[in-house]
């Protein structure tokens, strides 16, 4: 560090010329009061004393002037705004990113301070040492980025914003903040960005750094145990199997007890003892047909850094049968599903009217797929938007390859299936054209795709471009497996056989009355309103805190939706020392950010002390008077 201070406002040195009038006025104003004494004999001998004429005594004669000169010097130095060089580059515009994800609420056993409080302390120190030409913008980083202040040097505004920053019970996502900073760099020259975090975020960040990122890693917190997964699946017996995964951090072994509350009533409790970095899945059975609200409460047996992952919520839906529409022409599907008691097949015999909405529609005509449904399967035709890319020829063909990891084709063998209709790529057409329209090829034929998948505004659509009944597929073992996969897929989409706890930072979409306003009350007591879309969906509502959200409005009578943290990364409190960007890695800084230390307040204080000394010196009782 350079010990010589720099001066921000060097032009303040012009005020040193005030020394001239100060000295002139001092001597002009030095009218000594006359005092008559009986005789000067004694005083003359005093003045002739060697000690009086010593350099120190001569200095003391003008000590008031010297004090005044010193006072003026220190005032001028304050005006010149001195500072001590830290050695670091001084950025004029400095964005400070502060991680406020769930793990930043972690405390350590000694200080009981959260990581966010530590970050605030460091940022406050930076704000205190702001130089006059420096501007700082505070950005909160959680699952998204929030700009707390514009570039400003107003310490009050910065500190006020910093004080208002709280932890969100959400996972970290650095990309948004960096993109926001990149946008800021288009308006202000940004060379360096400070990022304060505990290091608990994904290591790989898909972003090209246009500036220098100074990653200030905060000291790690203590041990933590928390719930990382909470889901339920309906068993064959009609009960719900509830699965809870509890994970422990790296720090130390941690005993805990987990308790399940069903609609507020405790139904099960179990003790767990997890080693370092262990996780354990615990299973409970819950019996309900009418739907229940489950709450898992984890009680750590020792110090626990993070509170927000100790509770999780799960809503088990009301039981019902799947509503399946199968075209009359597709006998193989109808036959495969006829014996399943949990299904209601439509159209029923002698009945023309079906339900308004189906869970699964399997149809050989595109018109039938217009009905509202969660999962739709088109068989034996090419969707209208694909006609210009694919045509159907009557040739024998077979399957070349298929996506074995697809939920529909899991455990399905298509090797020896013979197909009599062959979809063929039109000239200059290919997979890219289909992908451009949102289709994914699940099964490839010799000259074109055989099975396509498309996710369309919440609905899942599959298209067999050939008529499965005109192939050997229904006679293969893979067909009932595929139909079973289809039913499981529909059950998942309908959420009536398997359900997962909702996690922050977004409330799960719920359907109410279209174009209505709904009031939402958060667990922290805040209220805000949102509107349903034309389909009646209320979606995209931020849920930054773990707990129950109350929704009121048309069709919603204080409905409760609960969200949980359920993030293994946040619970593990694992930290990373290096952020891997697209091109370069960024290591955590080994030292804290040194900022230039302004000295004007110290100089002003010295000037004030000098003023007091001068006043005291002027007013004091003469030292020579005996007591």
């Amino acid at each position: 560090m350079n010990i010589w201070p720099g001066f921000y406002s060097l032009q303040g040195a012009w005020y040193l010329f005030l020394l001239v009038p100060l000295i002139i006025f001092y001597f002009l104003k030095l009218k000594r009061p006359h005092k008559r004494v009986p005789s000067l004999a004694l005083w003359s001998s005093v003045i002739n004393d060697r000690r009086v004429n010593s350099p120190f005594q001569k200095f003391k004669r003008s000590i008031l002037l010297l004090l005044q000169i010193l006072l003026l010097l220190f005032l001028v130095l304050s005006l010149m705004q001195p500072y001590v060089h830290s050695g670091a580059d001084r950025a004029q515009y400095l964005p400070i990113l502060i991680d406020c994800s769930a793990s930043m609420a972690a405390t350590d056993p000694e200080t009981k301070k959260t990581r966010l409080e530590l970050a605030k302390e460091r940022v406050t120190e930076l704000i205190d040492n702001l130089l006059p030409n420096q501007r700082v913008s505070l950005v909160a980083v959680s699952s998204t980025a929030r700009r707390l202040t514009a570039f400003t040097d107003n310490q009050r505004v910065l500190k006020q914003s910093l004080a208002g920053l709280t932890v969100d019970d959400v996972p970290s996502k650095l990309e948004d903040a960096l993109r926001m900073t990149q946008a800021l760099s288009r308006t202000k020259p940004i060379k360096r960005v400070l990022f304060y975090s505990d290091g608990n975020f994904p290591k790989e960040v898909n972003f090209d750094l246009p500036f220098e990122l100074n990653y200030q890693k905060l000291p790690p917190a203590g041990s933590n145990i928390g719930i990382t997964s909470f889901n339920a699946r309906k068993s064959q017996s009609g009960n719900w199997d509830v699965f809870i995964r509890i994970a422990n951090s790296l720090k130390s072994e941690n005993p805990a007890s987990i308790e399940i509350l069903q609609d507020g009533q405790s139904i099960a409790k179990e003790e767990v003892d997890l080693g370092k970095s262990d996780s354990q899945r615990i299973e409970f059975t819950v019996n309900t047909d009418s739907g229940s609200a489950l709450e898992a409460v984890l009680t750590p047996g020792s110090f626990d850094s993070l509170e927000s992952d100790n509770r999780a919520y799960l809503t088990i839906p009301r039981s019902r049968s799947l509503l399946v529409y199968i075209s009359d022409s597709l006998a193989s599907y109808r036959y495969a599903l006829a014996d399943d008691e949990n299904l209601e097949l439509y159209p029923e015999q002698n009945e023309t009217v079906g339900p308004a909405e189906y869970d699964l529609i399997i149809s050989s005509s595109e018109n039938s797929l217009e009905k509202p449904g969660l999962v739709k399967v088109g068989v034996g035709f090419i969707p209208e938007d694909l006609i210009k890319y694919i045509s159907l020829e009557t040739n024998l063909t077979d399957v070349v390859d298929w996506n074995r990891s697809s939920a529909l084709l899991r455990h399905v063998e298509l090797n020896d299936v013979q197909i009599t209709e062959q979809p063929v790529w039109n000239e200059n057409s290919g997979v890219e054209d289909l992908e451009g329209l949102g289709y994914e090829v699940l099964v490839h034929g010799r000259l074109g795709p055989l099975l396509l998948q498309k996710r369309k505004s919440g609905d899942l659509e599959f298209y067999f471009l050939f008529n499965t009944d005109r192939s050997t597929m229904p006679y293969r073992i893979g067909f009932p497996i595929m139909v079973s996969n289809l039913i499981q897929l529909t059950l998942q989409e309908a959420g009536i056989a398997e359900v997962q706890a909702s996690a922050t930072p977004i409330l799960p979409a719920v359907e109410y009355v279209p174009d209505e306003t709904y009031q939402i009350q958060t667990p922290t007591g805040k209220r805000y309103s949102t509107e349903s879309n034309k389909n009646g969906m209320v979606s995209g509502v931020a849920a930054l805190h773990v707990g129950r959200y109350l929704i009121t409005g048309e069709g919603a009578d204080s409905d409760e939706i609960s969200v949980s943290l359920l993030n293994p990364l946040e619970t593990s409190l694992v930290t990373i020392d290096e952020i891997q960007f697209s091109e370069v890695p960024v290591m955590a800084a080994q030292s804290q950010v040194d900022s230039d230390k302004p000295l004007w307040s110290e100089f002003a204080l010295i000037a004030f002390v000098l003023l007091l000394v001068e006043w005291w010196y002027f007013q004091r009782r003469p030292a020579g008077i005996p007591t």
Partner: protein
Amino acid sequence: MPQESNTNQFTSLFDNKTLSMLERMRLNPTRRLTNRSRGEHLSGKGGTSTEFSDYRNYVPGDDVRYIDWNIFSRLNRPFMKQYQHEEEMHVVLILDASSSMDYENKFLRCQQLAAAFGVMGLLNFEKVSVYACNHKGSRPAMFAPSTGRISMKRLFDFLTKIEVGGNSPVEDAVEDVLRIHRGRGVAIVLSDFESFGDLQRPFNMLFSAGLEIYGVQILGSSEINPEINGDLRLVDSESGQTLDISSAGDLLGIYHEHRALLEDHLAMMCRQRSGRFLTIDSGDTVEHIIFDLLRRKGWVR
């Protein structure tokens, strides 16, 4: 300045009670410097008073009246009885009446002390003379040598009429007095002794003139404990000379040292000439000075 005289008071310098006490006191000189003329003071030489002093062998020519016949009858040898000689002592009061004494009752104490010493001298049949020195080079105001109670009123009148003011330094004043005065005894110098000159010569002259020196330094309270501070221009009351001092408060310590040195120097000069020296504060009462201070110091009895 002297107080306004009260019709019931003998003098404005003291009250009658103090005066009556003074009348019973007398000076107690260290040496017996007396004049040849008879007086009340016992001289060191043999005399004809009733106070027995010693015996000595008879030598021819001695007055046979002083032979102790009782011893002669027992020893058959003549021995002379010796008696103390009572001679007259001269009390010279030298008052510094320069401007420097016109501060804080300094001159009033000076007058009162002179009157007190004068009363003691007069009522003990000493010759008392007073000299007041104002201006340098001019003849000092003089109270001619007098003795007896009859002169007391005149002495008081003389003292109360002395005008204070002038620039006569004390060393010149002493020399001026010695040009006029004749007679041995005690010279009481009442001054502040704040002089630029050297007092060795006048004190030697006093000693040579057979006068025992009683130096009384009268200082005002502001001279003993000056309370000044800051930058000042000091003006000499006698000469009008000025002296600039800065940070006067810091010089006070040195001032006190110098004042103490002056006192020691004056006391030493007096002691070397078998005299006495005393510094008094003009703020003290004259009763305290005479009946307490001077008596304890053995100046008077």
